[in-house]
């Protein structure tokens, strides 16, 4: 590719960059899980210095963010909630912002989101580059031996939950199964989606009609339940209602249908006894 003419000033800068850039190994895709993360010391927003990680804790968590970005603002709010929810546990927290971000804006954002963790300043985005991070916000979760467990980009749904489970895995409080369940939660169908459960509504109403002394209506309702799904309990209620009407043959037939569908149904004996009684 062709090189455009450059000013002497730019050439000097590029010479400096050239020397610096070849020294640290750079990554150009996200750092993979298992990568060892260098525990760099960075300037803090409050004027001191702090390290990205700590070997004294079970879990290290850092979040790369930037100012003037809605997702970063939301991520920091949710991180503040995570920080609160996991307070007192063996976790080292750090937020990381580019040195190009105006400090006043960073301070305002941090104050607005309620974040308690120290804010480290990434001079010239060097750490951002080393980790191959190409977007904000990004959360890194690292163990006590500085091994990267995950880089989590922002997500709108269940963000804090996913982060907390990952952190809890390092704390020994959650398992891979918990993570799988959080990342792929069980579907939440609308009531009535399961025909067996839907049929049970009619069975329940049939039972109530039977209790009200309306056995004919109870039978009709139980029959409606059976049109939806073959639930043993519908036959049980039907058998009781027939017994109440003195129709013992129909009652016996209904009990047998219930027994066929659910041999262990606890109401079978009692229901049979209704017609057997003198």
């Amino acid at each position, binding site marked *: *590719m062709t090189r455009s003419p450059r000013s002497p000033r730019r050439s000097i*800068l590029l010479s400096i960059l050239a020397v610096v850039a070849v020294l640290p190994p750079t990554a150009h895709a996200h750092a993979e899980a298992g990568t060892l993360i260098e525990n760099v010391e960075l300037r803090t927003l409050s004027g001191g210095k702090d390290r990205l990680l700590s070997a004294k804790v079970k879990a290290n968590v850092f979040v790369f963010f930037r100012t003037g970005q809605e997702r970063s603002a939301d991520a920091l709010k949710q991180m503040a909630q995570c920080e609160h929810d996991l307070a007192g546990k063996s976790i080292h927290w750090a937020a990381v912002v*580019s040195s190009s971000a105006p400090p006043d804006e960073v301070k305002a954002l941090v104050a607005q989101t309620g974040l308690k963790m120290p804010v480290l300043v990434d001079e010239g985005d060097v750490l951002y580059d080393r980790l191959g991070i*190409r977007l904000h916000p990004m959360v890194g979760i690292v163990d006590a031996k500085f091994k990267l467990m995950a880089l989590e980009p922002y997500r709108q749904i*269940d963000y804090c939950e996913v982060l907390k489970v990952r952190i809890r895995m390092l704390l020994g409080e959650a398992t891979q199964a918990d993570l799988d369940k959080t990342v792929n939660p069980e579907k939440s*169908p609308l009531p009535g989606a399961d025909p067996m459960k839907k049929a049970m509504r009619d069975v329940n109403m049939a039972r109530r009609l039977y209790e009200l002394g309306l056995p004919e209506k109870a039978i009709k309702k139980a029959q409606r339940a059976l049109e939806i799904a073959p639930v043993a309990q519908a036959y049980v209620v039907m058998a009781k209602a027939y017994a109440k009407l003195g129709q013992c043959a129909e009652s016996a037939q209904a009990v047998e249908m219930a027994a066929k569908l659910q041999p262990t149904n606890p109401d079978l004996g009692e229901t049979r006894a209704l017609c057997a009684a003198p």
Partner: protein
Amino acid sequence: MDKRLPILAAALAAISLGLGAQRADAAPMKTEVKKQALRRGADVAPLPKDKALHSHAPFEGGDCGVCHQNNDPKNPGPIRHASVNEQCFECHDDVRDVMARKYKHVPAAEACTDCHNPHNSVETALLASEMVDMCTRCHAGIKQQVTTAKVRHDAVTTGKKCSNCHNPHAANVEKLLIALPFDLCVNCHAKDGMTTDDGRLMTNFKKWLDENKVWHDPVKAKDCSACHRTHGGENFRLLVAPYPEKFYAPYDRKLYALCYGCHNDKVVSEAETTTLTGFRDGSRNLHYVHVNRERGRTCRACHEVHASKQDHHIRDGVPYGPKGWMLKVGFTKLPNGGSCAKTCHDTKTYNNKTLTSAAAK
């Protein structure tokens, strides 16, 4: 290195400070939900029978005693249980299980009658009023999206309406979603031939994602709502922020606000960088080179935003000519960078490991 880093940092900081004042001006990604206490108690009185289209079975049968203390339509008395929900759960015990899920809808937890008329209704499921109207009485922010949107989403107003995607009782997913956004979206967007309101063909995402295994992070996270405003929006394809509709578009940061919602706009605005992108030849930022021109390339000229077959989400081909013939993008990832075979331009290689390789290849 210690002496050089501050110089580098200062230099980069100086460059980027000038750009720091630039801010994405996209509409807010999350809409405020103004929950108003309007639905605390639907009108539970029965509608005149000639007006109702759906009746609750006990009411229809005159069996008031199923729910009330007296089985007398003229004097039913109070309900038999201490709370409305306990009364309903006597028959609807499956809803008790639903309400045990992690995320609960407050009105549903308070009283089923916040949304349902227990006697009869003109609406299915005995809703006290039309669903979108009822939900958006409290969810005013969503109402604004639905009613004023330039681009509408049929999923909100057809079929089961709000409950195409949400379970208004309780759910295992945040925002009372029935499943993660991806599972909901791909469930419908899995057909060939679906079109937008203006007749444009829509992607069969199930097929596309099956055939292209390098997925964009939001897709991996099943988070379609990271980029799409599912209730309706101002941008084409329901995008949460502006993005050029046409393949070629002059570079204006505001037009690319969608991508910069996550990605750093400096990846395109900085002519030189050693840290912001791997797509550089030495320190020459090749994103900058491609985008900052009169017929600037949009992000999707090279990147396939949902899923691709090539690394870095590089698209397989670009549409060419009036019939949209696909011109292959022959990208090859190399240990020190990559190369693009002759398609849009002659074969070119870039090296991002040193700063001495910026000469033409």
